[in-house]
């Protein structure tokens, strides 16, 4: 019964989405306030009905209702409760429902939290949002219904793929979807502005918090996915340039560019057309990612194998929305008013450079992702585009961007002084050089690329700090005065500093773990030891383990450094009973920011075991940096100006903090 209620709620949500997509739109065209006011109600109601539907599916999973096909295929009654719940979105149908749930959640949030939005803009935004949810609700009901019943019901389920039975599944997809789908709001705002034919600084101010929210979740989601892959897949790698990873990374790059161009639009009313284009592009890339993952065109760890009709269905949605958006853009963009003037060397100029490099880098990733598909479709030749391609293209595009990052916030709007900015960054440059000299002195002649990478990371981190130090006149006035100035700076300035610092932290982690990574593979018997760097791992023996749906063997290692025991580690070999699948659980121990990573190969009958040990220098900084970036984003999100009720009139000169 509850399952049928869920199914029915989904149908009702579709009807509401159709109503919410047409009535307010019609009202906006005719200037009918009552019709436009419908948008808020339908948006909130859509969310409630999809939430009921999602709750019904979750209930079916929790009580292991094996009369539901989706539950049979992806669950097992002995599975821990956490994995029963996260199993809801560990499959195509359920994750699609989660996708739509988040989509309508954002619509409802706009409806509730945008009281100061002009009625017409709000009606249009929510109408566009309803079109998207209608399309995907229709897709779920027609081609991937999670509520299908089975008769007779089997006694037990097939269980979830063991690789997915991890806390990562509970966190990673919801975070990633919050990011992916959150981009739909800026898309809806862009389409609404194009339909309305009007766009001003206030528009950018309304869009920015939504973009920033989506960006924060996307950052967290990608970082979480990367860490999950790192500890679960046992290869010791954290990014594989797998097409589906790229599918989440491209919207991130575009959203990062959008965040920055929205600042220019908000402060200076420039780059309007470009910002609109980026908003459309970001969500288009999110949709493309959805298509790549679900259509079965890719072979990847992520791909849901699905029947081709689903792929074609999503391709149609993709074409309608992206094609429609770009046609509208082509028709209307020329009518948007021109923005403010600025010199090439200025804050605007720096942000334009940021946008150019980010979108060009995004384009190289897009080419690397789609080229093999296109080549196979056209010539039948099969190739794989992997890390070497992206190292050669994405890497060089990022280097000038990262060098330029500290300059941006130090340049004034309209016309900047690059020499003055350079002087303020002398300390950061000195710090980067000091690291190079120190590196040469300590390690003789290490790789030039590694030294350059570390110097770049130091440049980014110290450069971010220098900007704040300059603005609070650190060392030039009394500490109390500096403190007062610091407290008076807008939160968005602190957010910029923290986020840029986080980029430096991630770069340091990437360089450290790539350049000073050591690994060894040995066959050990209990009592034998292997040495990596200054640490020795002794294999103590075997420990039997068992969980709800698996049994296995853990291998206990004692880690010693200089004769002292510093850690014990226990990687595992598991055998899941349903389906009959072996998995390997790596053991990871963190020392400072570096990690020791132990993974197991085969265990022979005589107890000798193949053991792979990695030492990854500073690798934890990669994900820590992403957390710092997210913290910066949230700090910026808490800035007062994004919450102020009435936006400033566009013509009043924008207050620039005292410099």
């Amino acid at each position, binding site marked *: 019964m509850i399952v049928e209620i869920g199914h029915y709620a989904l149908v009702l949500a579709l009807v509401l989405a159709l109503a919410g997509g047409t009535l307010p739109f019609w009202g906006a065209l005719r200037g009918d306030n009552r019709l436009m006011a419908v948008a808020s109600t339908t948006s909130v109601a859509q969310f409630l009905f999809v939430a009921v539907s999602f709750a019904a599916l979750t209930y079916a999973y929790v009580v292991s209702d094996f009369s539901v096909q989706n539950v049979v295929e992806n669950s097992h009654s002995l599975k821990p409760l956490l994995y029963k719940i996260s199993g809801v979105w560990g499959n195509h149908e359920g994750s699609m429902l989660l996708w739509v749930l988040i989509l309508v959640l954002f619509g409802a949030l706009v409806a509730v939290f945008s009281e100061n939005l002009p009625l017409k803009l709000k009606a249009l935004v929510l109408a566009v949002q309803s079109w998207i949810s209608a399309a995907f609700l229709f897709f779920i009901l027609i081609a991937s219904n999670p509520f299908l019943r089975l008769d007779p019901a089997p006694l037990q389920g097939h269980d979830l793929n063991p*690789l997915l039975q991890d806390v990562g599944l509970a966190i990673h997809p919801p975070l990633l979807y919050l990011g992916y789908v959150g981009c739909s709001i800026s898309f809806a705002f862009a389409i609404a502005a194009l339909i309305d034919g009007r766009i001003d600084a206030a528009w950018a101010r309304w869009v920015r918090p939504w973009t920033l929210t989506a960006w924060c979740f996307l950052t967290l989601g990608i970082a979480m996915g990367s860490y*999950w892959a790192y500890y679960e897949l046992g290869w010791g790698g954290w990014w594989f340039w797998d097409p589906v990873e790229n599918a989440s990374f491209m919207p991130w790059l575009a959203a990062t560019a959008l965040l920055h161009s929205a600042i220019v639009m908000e402060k200076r009313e420039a780059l309007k057309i470009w910002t609109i284009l980026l908003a459309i592009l970001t969500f288009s890339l999110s949709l493309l990612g959805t298509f790549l993952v679900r259509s079965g065109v890719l*072979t990847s760890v992520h*791909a849901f194998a699905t029947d081709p009709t689903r792929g074609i269905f999503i391709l149609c949605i993709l074409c309608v929305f992206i094609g429609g958006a770009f046609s509208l853009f082509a028709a209307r963009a020329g009518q948007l008013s021109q923005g403010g003037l600025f010199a090439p060397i200025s804050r605007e100029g720096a942000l334009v450079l940021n946008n*150019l490099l980010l979108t060009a880098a995004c384009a190289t990733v897009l080419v690397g992702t789609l080229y093999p598909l296109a080549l196979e479709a056209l010539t039948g030749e099969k190739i794989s585009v992997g890390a070497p391609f992206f190292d050669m293209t994405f890497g060089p595009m990022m280097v000038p961007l990262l060098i330029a990052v500290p300059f941006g916030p130090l340049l004034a709007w309209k016309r900047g002084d690059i020499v003055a900015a350079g002087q303020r960054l002398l300390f950061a440059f000195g710090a980067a050089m000091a690291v190079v000299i120190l590196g040469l002195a300590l390690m003789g002649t290490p790789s030039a690329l590694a030294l350059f990478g570390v110097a770049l990371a130091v440049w980014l981190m110290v450069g971010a700090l220098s900007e704040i130090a300059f603005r609070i006149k650190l060392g030039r006035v009394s500490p109390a005065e500096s403190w007062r100035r610091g407290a008076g700076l807008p939160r968005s300035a602190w957010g910029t500093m923290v986020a840029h610092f986080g980029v430096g932290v991630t770069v340091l982690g990437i360089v450290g773990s790539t350049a000073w990574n050591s690994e060894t593979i040995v066959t050990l018997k209990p009592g034998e030891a292997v040495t990596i760097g200054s640490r020795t791992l002794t294999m103590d023996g075997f420990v039997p383990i068992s969980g709800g749906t698996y049994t296995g063997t853990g291998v206990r290692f004692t880690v010693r450094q200089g004769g002292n025991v510093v850690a014990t580690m226990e990687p595992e070999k598991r055998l899941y009973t349903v389906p009959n699948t072996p998995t390997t659980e790596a053991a990871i121990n963190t020392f400072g920011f570096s990690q020791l990573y132990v993974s197991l190969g085969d265990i022979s009958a005589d107890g000798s075991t193949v053991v792979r040990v990695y030492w990854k220098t500073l690798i934890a900084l990669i994900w820590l940096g992403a957390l710092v970036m997210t913290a910066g984003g949230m700090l910026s999100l808490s800035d007062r100006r994004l919450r102020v009720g009435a936006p400033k009139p566009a013509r009043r000169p924008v207050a620039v903090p005292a410099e």
Partner: protein
Amino acid sequence: MTRKQRRLTLISLAGVVLASAVGLVLFALSDGITFFTSPSDVLAKPPSVDQRVRLGGLVERGSIVKEADGVVRFAVTDGKATVPARYVGILPDLFREGQGVVAEGKVDGSGLFVADTVLAKHDETYMPKEVVDALKKSGEWRPEDGDGPAPQTVQR
């Protein structure tokens, strides 16, 4: 600067960035990609010693030999031809004889495939698409062996 000059500066900057992106992509496409081959292809037309390729097929039954310190020898077959391979490291959990495999590496002078990466299935019923295509090409594709398309694979 006049408005025109400023616009020109911006456009030329954009041009430089775009041109370098295109240049990098073209360069990388000629150098940074890996072609997929089957054992028959390797025997018929061996790739040069420094060319990375992806070799896809089935792990030949009875061919896996495990040596000391993680060295594994096995053979990849598509039913028509068989290529011996060597890999150092920990094999995927689902690497088994008679099952699909994709190995990435180079063919050395003696015709041995030295793999640096071995990818196997992600779950019980999955087979890499390239392997399916290669087997179909050599006429050795037998879906009834249980290697049909996957009902469900992994989402990370």
